[in-house]
């Protein structure tokens, strides 16, 4: 029996589900055993894998979040593109079966899919119906615009129903990148980086500046509470403990929300937008992660990986995973299979609706930059500078763009 190592970043409820799915695969055949190991957050998992690669101890499969795509794509020689893997191993693989938004994100300029989609998400709004009710709001009507967010929050706080209006996970992903796409603002030049390595960031546009400025203002007023860098580990607890009435987070937080929000009822809504920005709401971009195959492992492991991928792409597995976790169904087949589920669980399709709201534009189809993992760190830092009051929104975003571009240049230099 060949063991195939899979490093992933699914903690908590998701991790448990993931192990269950892997168990399903391992039980379904006897040639291969996939061994999942949780390596921490997305950035931790990715850097651990890179370090391991350098040490020649890499796993066959690693889960890399969407913004690591640029770095992984450029690492020719370190990765085995998934289209090639499947072809080499003679496994069935049809890129066309996946949703277009997903395919677009992970496909190189030649149209080849480089990694195996697994868990794609998009951010949505969760809110506490009980608090809404207590504050005299309609528990079935989440705020639609940022104006309403502010207004509702104030009501909630004044009524004493909760201490704070809202919090958010992933300031980088949700309040910056998705915010830009949602308002049809460019994240960077050259189609947000899809156009080539010369692309540069442009996150310091007036709309983003206004939003970050507002977040700071709301933080000062206590309406908004910051939940920490990366995924914002402290945000969900504030929502669960009913400190904050609303949270914006990955659709995939659903599993956690359901497990932890035991004392109140949760509602789901689309991300708010500024109604004075033209074209908003556009569509959100996908997040989550795909599975990359690293080179340098024995051939049997690749055979196992291919087999495992076939299993993972199956509609049954995908539908099961998506309905448990809140991740999007990534194949058409899975989406079809889940229609019943969606009708039974109102709000479960919020994410799907968001990404498919409009035909994606250059600004809203995703992003692809090198060293973006590091840039994510910079986004968090600059946001924290803003929160700490050491910079204003314009200053923080300007500096974010400047430092981010330095990373991109560095990446360009490294890859030459």
């Amino acid at each position: 029996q060949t063991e195939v190592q899979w490093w992933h970043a699914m903690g908590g409820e998701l991790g448990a589900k993931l192990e269950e799915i892997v168990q399903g695969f391992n039980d379904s055949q006897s040639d291969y055993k996939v061994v999942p190991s949780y390596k921490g957050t997305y950035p931790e998992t990715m850097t651990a894998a890179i370090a391991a690669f350098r040490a020649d101890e890499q796993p066959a499969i690693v889960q890399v979040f969407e913004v690591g795509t640029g770095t992984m794509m450029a690492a020719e020689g370190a990765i085995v593109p998934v289209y090639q893997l499947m072809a080499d191993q003679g496994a069935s693989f049809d890129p066309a079966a996946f949703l277009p938004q997903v395919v677009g994100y992970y496909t190189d300029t030649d149209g080849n899919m480089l990694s195996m989609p697994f868990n794609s998400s998009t951010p949505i709004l969760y809110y506490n119906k009980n608090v809404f009710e207590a504050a005299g709001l309609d528990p079935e009507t989440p705020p639609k615009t940022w104006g309403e967010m502010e207004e509702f929050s104030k009501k909630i706080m004044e009524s004493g129903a909760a201490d704070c209006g809202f919090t958010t996970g992933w300031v980088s992903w949700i309040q910056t990148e998705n915010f830009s796409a949602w308002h049809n603002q460019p994240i960077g030049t050259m189609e947000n980086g899809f156009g080539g390595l010369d692309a540069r960031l442009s996150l310091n546009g007036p709309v983003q500046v206004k939003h970050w400025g507002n977040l700071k203002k709301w933080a000062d007023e206590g309406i908004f509470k910051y939940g920490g860098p990366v995924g914002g580990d402290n945000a969900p607890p504030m929502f669960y403990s009913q400190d904050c009435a609303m949270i914006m987070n990955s659709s995939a937080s659903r599993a956690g929300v359901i497990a932890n929000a035991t004392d109140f009822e949760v509602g789901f809504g689309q991300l708010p937008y500024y109604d004075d920005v033209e074209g908003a709401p556009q569509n959100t971009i996908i997040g989550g992660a795909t599975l990359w195959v690293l080179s340098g492992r024995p051939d049997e492991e690749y055979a196992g990986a291919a087999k495992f991928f076939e299993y993972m792409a199956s509609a049954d597995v995908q539908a099961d995973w998506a309905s448990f976790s809140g991740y999007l169904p990534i194949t058409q087949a899975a989406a079809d299979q889940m229609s019943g589920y969606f009708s039974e669980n109102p709000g479960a399709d919020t994410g799907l609706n968001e990404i498919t709201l409009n035909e994606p534009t250059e600004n809203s189809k995703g992003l692809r930059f090198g060293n973006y993992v590091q840039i994510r760190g910079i986004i968090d830092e600059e946001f924290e500078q803003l929160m700490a009051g050491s910079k204003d929104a314009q200053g923080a975003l300007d500096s974010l763009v400047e430092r981010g571009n330095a990373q991109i240049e560095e990446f360009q230099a490294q890859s030459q």
Partner: protein
Amino acid sequence: MIENRPVLNFLAHLVLILGVAIVALPVWIAFVASTHTATDFSSGTIPMWPGPHLVENYSRMLDSGLSTSGTPPVGRMMFNSMIMALSIAIGKIIISVLSAFAIVYFRFPLRNMAFWCIFITLMLPVEVRIVPTFQVVAGLGLLNSYAGLSIPLIASATATFLFRQVFMTIPDELTEAARIDGAGPMKFFRDILLPLSRTNIAALFVILFIYGWNQYLWPLLITTDAQYYTIVAGIKRMADAVDGLPQWHLVMATAMLAMLPPVAVVIFMQRLFVKGLVETEK
């Protein structure tokens, strides 16, 4: 006693009691937390007295742990920590006592250079050269192994200096007596030097055990296989919760377990501990 001033004595006791309280506070809170359930925290008021779930929480952690945090059972991690701490402590002592013997009791060409080579390790803490050291260890195929956890940490200038110091205080006459009594170098080493350094070795062992047990960065980096996680490095993974409340009661139970062996060593071997501490810093 020079003056008998009750006020001063009272003040001294007060300061000390406060000091003890401050020092103990975090551990008390951790202990209290480790005896409750998760929901006791989210309810808003923090419990200040132990709850009824001590056995449940600890035994759960010892045998199964928090699998969603990617860590093996705490029992396993403690076992790994124990192996690492013991290997480091014993390894350091062995190689240091040998090198100190060579340096003190022999004159040979390049002796000074050898001495400096060892000395230089003081100036290269692992945190500082972490990236290349990781690569060297990886290159040797020592990732995810007990050898990798311990061997790179067992070079020790401090321990070598300590033994050098100890040997320097062993009177020349004793060596001379042994020589006249017909003992060669290794016989002298075994019959005289080692037995005479016994308490120093024991004291050093206590300190080095704590040092080894408390290693963090190194095990964090070189273990990617959960079977080799150590408890100190593993505990942080547990505290990072994703999309959920950290299981504080379980994390704190683990913290208590992680503290237990080294703290017990300090408390029960206080004399040796203090001796070791003072000596290694000389």
